[in-house]
């Protein structure tokens, strides 16, 4: 497909991607957009670290600093980490379960475009007004107090992209439940698929509280409601609850798929099946479930009372148990294995100590009585960067190297991959380890500068130097990507040679219908089983037949664009601009018009005929 695409003009390719409903292309869209936002968020992180490199620095102003940290957190979580995970879910999950596509290809595209326009809207705040400045948590009293439109951008942008995320979640759930290939029972699903499943369930239940919270905030700020207005009977703690009922599951939405990626890598590069597969599945589900019972550990100092604090403290600690099960299962997957140190494996291996460091500080935070000291200090910043960067970002980079060949048909350079690794890994520990101590020594988080002679100079300097190492690592990786694509050496089905799951049984990149014939799955690590029996690929589960494919559609872009337009109207309406209300209405009309167009126009898709499939076979396309 992509060789074919390259022969066409830029316009045609662009149109192809704007209208695509193919999960593999949507994956690439997510990868590009998420990667872009990761660079933006990383740049913001660099600004933070430059500002804090020495006391009394004035690289950025106080107000701008608050905008930068808010946008850094928001961008990284909502617009970088999650979409990048969606990129791999889209690229890999349908292949891993032996499906021709996701359950709702159209909705898949819609989800992406909603995320994209929501993210765009949020980031336009930099240019149109001021950016949100109340932290990524946007606590009510400060957020309702905040002047300008920053918070409005936050509320509307996240609302739009949140709908996209919710759709993606439902889509993956249905795909995994309904579209598995013959023989692919639940307990034969690869762990990345399992973790996608659980993370999607978390999305399904965690995003509605965020939707409600954002709606209430929007009503308060734009329509005069009183949810958080204490003078009129409102209560700001409601926001804290709603945000964290979403926010805590959110961190597991991020880390579970990361765990899934590492599970694949450990198994592939140790040439061993995952140790304790069923307890891994069980632990994943349990983490997901417990994730909903612990949100108030972010609110220990809010004053919920000792009973609530104690309950939530103990509940939070319980999560260490299933997580520990996973850590030890990974270690024992490698134990007795035949470990090959490729770039993905470097990241996976480095993940273990890094994440455990972050996890155990999480348990310290969970101990309510000590959290009174840690809360809102750099100790917390250190904790969550250890788990997020050491867990999620490591996984994203590892996944990029692991699945790049499957997505693009060419392999990233291993040497440069390892250079990236060392720079980033060293920088990471340099930046964040010392922050534990900064926090304990009395440095609150979210301060735009610190005063000299409070013992905080050295730590901050070290931390900032580390950030430059990370940036260097990222730049090497960018170079690697560009150089690899330019070289474009084609590779075969199973470039790592030790692939175990179905995605490695078809060409790289996969043909647009994925599987000519659905494969017959005979056990866990289906491809590995066949390989061990000396076969080259999977046995088909069905005779060659016509394949039903969905039509491309431009409607998702239009529909998302409508909401994007409407959001501007909603945002500027309270200022009394005459054009605001019409813009709001026009935007909504575009969206609902597109919706009605979609539902009135029948879309039956098309068929690839058997003959054409045989044709391709004969020409020996790919592999």
């Amino acid at each position, binding site marked *: 497909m992509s060789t074919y695409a390259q022969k066409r003009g830029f316009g045609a390719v662009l149109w192809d991607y704007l209208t695509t409903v193919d999960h593999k292309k949507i994956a690439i869209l997510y990868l590009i957009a998420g990667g872009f936002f990761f660079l933006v968020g990383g740049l913001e992180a660099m600004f933070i670290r430059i500002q804090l490199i020495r006391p009394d620095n004035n690289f950025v102003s106080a107000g701008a600093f608050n905008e930068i940290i808010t946008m850094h957190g928001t961008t990284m979580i909502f617009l970088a980490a999650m979409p990048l995970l969606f990129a791999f879910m889209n690229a890999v999950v349908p292949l891993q379960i032996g499906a021709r596509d996701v359950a709702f290809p159209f*909705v898949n595209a819609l989800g992406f475009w909603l995320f994209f326009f929501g993210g765009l809207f949020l980031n336009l705040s930099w240019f149109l007004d001021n950016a949100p400045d109340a932290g990524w948590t946007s606590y009510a009293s400060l957020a309702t107090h905040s002047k300008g439109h920053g918070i409005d951008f936050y509320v509307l942008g996240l609302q739009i992209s949140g709908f996209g995320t919710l759709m993606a979640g*439902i*889509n993956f*759930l249905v795909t995994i439940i309904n579209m598995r290939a013959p023989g692919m029972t639940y307990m034969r699903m690869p762990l990345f698929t399992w973790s996608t499943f659980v993370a999607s369930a978390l999305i399904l239940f965690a995003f509605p509280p965020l939707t409600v919270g954002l709606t*209430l905030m929007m009503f308060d700020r734009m329509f005069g*409601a009183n949810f958080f*207005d204490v003078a009129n009977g409102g209560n700001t703690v409601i926001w804290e609850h709603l945000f964290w009922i979403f926010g805590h599951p959110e961190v597991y939405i991020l880390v579970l798929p990361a765990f899934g990626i590492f599970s694949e890598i450990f198994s592939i590069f140790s040439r061993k099946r995952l140790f304790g597969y069923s307890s891994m599945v069980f632990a994943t589900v349990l983490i997901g479930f417990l994730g909903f019972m612990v949100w108030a550990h972010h609110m220990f100092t809010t004053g919920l009372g000792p009973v609530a604090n104690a309950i939530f403290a103990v509940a939070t600690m319980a999560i260490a148990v299933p997580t520990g099960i996973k850590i030890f299962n990974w270690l024992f997957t490698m134990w007795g294995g035949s470990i090959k140190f490729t770039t993905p494996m470097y990241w996976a291996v480095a993940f273990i100590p890094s994440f455990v460091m972050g996890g155990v500080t999480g348990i310290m935070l969970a101990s309510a009585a000590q959290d009174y000291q840690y809360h809102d200090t750099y100790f917390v910043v250190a904790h969550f960067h250890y788990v997020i960067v050491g867990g999620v970002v490591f996984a994203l980079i590892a996944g990029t190297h692991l699945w790049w060949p499957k997505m693009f048909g060419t392999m990233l350079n291993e040497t440069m991959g390892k250079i990236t690794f060392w720079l980033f890994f060293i920088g990471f520990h340099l930046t964040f380890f010392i922050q534990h101590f900064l926090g304990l020594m009395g440095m609150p988080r979210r301060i735009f500068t610190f005063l000299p002679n409070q013992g905080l100079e050295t730590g901050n300097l070290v931390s900032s130097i580390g950030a430059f190492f990370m940036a260097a690592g990222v730049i090497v990786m960018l170079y690697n990507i560009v150089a690899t694509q330019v070289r474009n050496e084609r590779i075969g089905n199973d470039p790592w040679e030790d692939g175990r799951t179905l995605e490695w049984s078809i060409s790289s990149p996969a043909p647009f219908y994925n599987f000519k014939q659905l494969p017959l799955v005979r056990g866990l690590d289906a491809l590995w089983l066949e390989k061990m029996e000396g076969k080259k690929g999977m046995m088909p589960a069905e005779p060659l037949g016509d394949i039903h494919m969905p039509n491309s559609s431009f409607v998702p872009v239009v529909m998302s664009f409508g909401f994007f337009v409407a959001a501007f109207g909603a945002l500027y309406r309270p200022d009394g601009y005459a054009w605001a209300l019409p813009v709001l209405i026009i935007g909504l009309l575009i969206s609902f018009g597109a919706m009605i167009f979609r*539902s009135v126009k*029948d879309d039956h898709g098309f068929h690839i005929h058997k003959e054409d499939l045989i044709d391709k076979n004969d020409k020996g396309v790919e592999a």
Partner: protein
Amino acid sequence: MQTEEKLTFETWPALPEKATLEGKNKFLGFWLFLGGETVLFASLFATYLALKDKVPDDTHHLAAEIFDLPLTFVATMLLLTSSLTSVYAMYHMKNFAFNKMMLWLGVTVALGLGFLGLEIYEFNHYVHEYGHTFTSSAFGSAFYSLVGFHGAHVVFGLVWITTLMIRNAKRGLSLYNAPKFYLASLYWHFIDVVWVFIFTVVYLMGMVG
């Protein structure tokens, strides 16, 4: 089965909404969506319960003073009955009786409209009689958000069912539109489920005090 197939009374499957892969997917996806909606409404209920009767001063009316039992009762009856009529519609859908299905869907829409009319009257009444508005107090904001959100679901459900009816009026039943009708009716039931909690938690409990 393929969606394009022309079917007859004899070949119409037992579960037309799930006869195709698309139908199965839609069916499941929609149920999952309802699972999410449950959390959404629960969050709104929680907010309402936290802010119930929270008003800035005692010139504002409280729940016990404004709610009206007969009005709520009539509204409840309308919505409950519309739930039954949409069951009838699905019964006929399964029996490939297109016209009867359309008839009962029509009745459902009419009942839904009646409910909506009552709700509009009710809100209007609160605003003018008691000065109980969306912006008058936290209680007001929470009340109108919860009940209004449900009302918005009713509106959406009505538009959905009506669009389906118009679009398919001339085409009859097929495996392509059967899942759509089925989902719309599921949605309509779900609206009723939510209403059961609204009349209990908001109105009845509000009147008890």
